[in-house]
């Protein structure tokens, strides 16, 4: 494996890099608009910072391209525990904006949780490819789940609900990819859906009926079927208790989604302003630098989480369409590379990274347009943010590394 032939990279999917550069450029254009019109000192603006961070990001990209696959495969569990340790480090650092996400490295803040995502994907891929698992058994979900849950809980406690949820997303696609049965995935998801529907009587009823149908079709032993069914119902009834254990701001975010007009200056304020920005952009936008929502600061966290609202307002639907198409193409490309890769490890890594990108893109965009609660999750390549930009390019590097373009 180490003796890579010189033409190994000739088959690497370079188009992925081009796509990521296109997205990064669109991001820089918007950041420049914000910086030029709102900051007196361009050197301290988010545009300039992003530009500077492109350097380390490209180093990360190249590192991930050239690092031998077998080394990753060999030392990934060691890395897993190191990263788990590092995740605890921010608790000993000072808080930034009331959270423990950052490790203070002199002038640069650094978010270890960004890199935890990569480690999780590699670890899962190694575990699922090494153990020639009998994925027909529901218990084979156990270890992968534990592997993901531990860092997720640590990050959730930072508190960073968004990243914690993102960390969970590669699990199911990778299990599915490794051959897990659909019914088991249903069993896995059932408790979650039970909890979510518990707050709405009709949904909960429909879900209850749906469970009966699925369990019936699967024909398990009667006792198992009943246990599965009733424990899920019980969990649903327990949900209000769990709800009360959420932090206020988390509750607010969820509530604001249900009824954004309820508190126009609370959590829903961001959603309303973001929707207004996007909607008022129309097909072609108000023009670069002419977004009133953006430049009069109605739009919150516009450099990072709500960068797409800036683009929607200033550059319009046309650019949104381009961005979504590029993301779609990128993700599908990764899935396709995963499908055509020769070894299972590579395939799992690719599908894991595709899930991570998909999760980021979907959660961020859905949040921006008010479809899901405000999560505080950036948009890959486009949002400003050093650690995140770097981890995105590192993921692209991994895709380049393990992916083999077979355009036959």
């Amino acid at each position, binding site marked *: 494996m180490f003796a890579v032939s010189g033409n190994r990279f000739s088959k690497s999917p370079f188009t992925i890099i081009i796509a990521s550069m296109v997205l990064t450029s669109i991001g820089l254009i918007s950041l420049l608009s914000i910086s030029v019109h709102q900051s007196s000192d361009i050197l301290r603006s988010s545009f300039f910072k992003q530009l500077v961070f492109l350097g380390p990001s490209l180093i990360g990209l190249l590192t991930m391209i050239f690092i031998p696959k077998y080394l990753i495969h060999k030392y990934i569990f060691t890395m897993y525990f190191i990263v788990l340790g590092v995740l605890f480090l921010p608790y000993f650092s000072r808080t930034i904006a009331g959270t423990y996400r950052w490790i203070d490295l002199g002038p640069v803040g650094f978010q270890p949780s960004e890199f935890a995502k990569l480690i999780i994907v590699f670890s899962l891929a190694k575990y699922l490819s090494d153990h020639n698992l009998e994925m027909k058994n529901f218990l084979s979900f156990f270890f992968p789940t534990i592997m993901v849950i531990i860092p997720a809980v640590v990050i959730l406690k930072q508190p960073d609900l968004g990243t914690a949820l993102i960390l969970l997303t590669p699990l199911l696609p990778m299990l599915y990819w490794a051959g897990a049965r659909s019914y088991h995935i249903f069993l896995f998801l059932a408790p979650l859906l039970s909890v979510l529907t518990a707050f709405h009587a009709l949904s909960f009823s429909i879900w209850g009926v749906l469970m009966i149908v699925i369990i019936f079709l699967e024909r398990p032993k009667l006792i198992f079927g009943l246990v599965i069914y009733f424990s899920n119902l019980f969990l649903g009834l327990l949900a209000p208790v769990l709800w009360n254990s959420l932090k206020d701001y988390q509750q607010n975010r969820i509530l604001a989604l249900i009824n954004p007009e309820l508190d126009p200056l609370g959590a829903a304020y961001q959603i309303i302003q973001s929707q207004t920005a996007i909607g008022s952009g129309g097909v072609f936008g108000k023009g670069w630098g002419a977004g009133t*929502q953006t430049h009069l600061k109605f739009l919150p966290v516009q450099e990072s989480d709500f960068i797409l609202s800036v683009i929607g307002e200033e550059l319009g639907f046309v650019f949104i369409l381009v961005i979504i198409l590029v993301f779609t193409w990128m*993700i599908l490309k990764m899935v396709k590379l995963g499908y055509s890769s020769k070894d299972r490890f590579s395939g799992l890594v690719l599908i894991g990274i595709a899930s991570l990108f998909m999760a980021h893109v*979907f959660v961020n965009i859905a949040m921006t347009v008010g479809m899901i609660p405000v999560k505080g999750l950036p948009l890959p390549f486009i949002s400003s943010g050093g650690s995140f930009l770097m981890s995105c390019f590192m993921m692209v590097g991994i895709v380049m590394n393990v992916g083999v373009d077979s355009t036959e």
Partner: protein
Amino acid sequence: MLKAENLISKQRYYIIIGIVIFLMLILLSRFFYLQIFRYEKYKHKAEINRIRAVTVNAPRGLILDRNGNILVDNYPTYILTAIPGEMEQKEKIFNSISQCTGIDSLIIAENFKKYYRAKFVPTRLMKDLTFHQISVLEENILDLPGVNYKQFPERYYPSSINGSHFLGYLKEVDKPVQGNLGNPNVYELGDLIGWSGLEKFYESQLKGTRGVKYLEVDALGREMEEVKGYNNQRPEPGADIKLMIDSDLQLLMEEKMKDYRGIAVLSNPVTGGILAYVSKPDYPPNIFTGKMLKDDWNEVRNDPHRPLMDRIITGLYPPGSTFKIITALALLEENLLDPSKEVECTGSYQFGDRTFHCWNETGHGSVNLQVGIAQSCNIYFYHIVQKLSLSQWVDNCFDFGFGQETGIDLPYEKTGVIPTEKYMNRKYGKWGWSRGNLLNLALGQGDVLVTPIQMVQFINQIATHGNAGRLHFVQEDKEEKGIRPQFSDNTWNKIEKYLLSTVSDNQGTGRSADPKIKGLIIGGKTGTAENPHGDPHAWFIGFGKKDNQMLTTVILIENGGHGGEIAAPIARSAYSRYFLPIKQSQMALKTP
């Protein structure tokens, strides 16, 4: 270990592809909906989002004296406001403001509660901030979401006169005030409204009209710039009012009265214009502006001498001997009195079972009407008043406007008391009073009570032989005539002659009112009004005439003793100042 084969069914691959495309289509359709279907709605929303209507307070009209000197001006102060709905942590913000300005955060919180109207209406937190305080706040404005400041014109008194009682003061419109105003839209909470004096009387002229400014604002509510194409309305400043007041005379009178409780009013009897208007004790008019300290306010309010009270229009006093003029006029007009007929004054007079005294205990000797007035002999008037009935006397009082408002352009004027028969019957019972009471009334004692402003009107009518102008402060295009007491020229001339002798006569009680200016004639009447509050009140009412100029003076010193001794000299200083060029008058004032 990397040898595990990649076993993935085509079906699963397509399912994953399908899920990705499905999710992306959901997102795309949402954008399509927002940006194309609902474009108009959000465009409008973005438009109103950035524009806020801000009211601009109109400066009140100025108040000028007769020479155009500014008595009441405006100066810009800053008020700090906050939009309640945009302040996430009020306590924290109040504390930050407190740190920036050095003002107790409890006061800020109290103000917030006081002015709060609605979640998105700017609520006043503080007023009268200095430029320095605003600068410090501006530096920290990013940490104070929803907090803003604007200019606010406040009253300012550049003149050295006090004039507190006629200028009046403003009050902030608070909730109870707003509730009583009828139309709540004219005044916003925190606006200033004329609450006393001319500020109240001429409120509608002085007030002006609020303007509206449409400003582009950012999400923190910070105002960026005016939006063009909107109907920006500039505030219309209130109209200035020009008074008849002569600052020079006003200042002189305030100075002369500063050690007394009492009043001094100078007026032009022909026009009715008030030239000086002093009620003492008074207060500096600016205690009602700016950061009035509670202590200052309490001190003024709890002062036993009641400086807030305008004694000229709301003080009720017995007129004392000045009312002898009414008795004399009535008798002369009805031809019931021979002015030359003498009465012997021995210092006391027996009427029924009561003994009345003259102020001069040794007696005036033989007294005719002229001497009776000039030396204010009580005994003489006890004799002659008996020819008069109570109703005749009352009619004469009413003819001169006593018992009624003078209609001067100030609010809250009182009417005083002229005891009619009905009044006396009600008060004492039909048989409870007798002609003996009339003896008292003839001397301006007993149940009769007048306001000093009524005395001003009274002396003005005498000085002009019934042609005095209606009393007023604000210059008018057309002088209005007041009440018209009707007496024959003969009566007017005689009474004027007697009043002149009060001042010019060696024995005259008002002799110290004469500044001895060539060509100036002075007439007047002193009064020493007994009252239950201690020493008698000292009155002097008088007029001075020179060429075509006329000036009347009404001076009252509470518990001042004899009118001739204490009130008349104050009148003299007014005459010298008015009828002499300034330099000469200052010299005249120095000579005793």
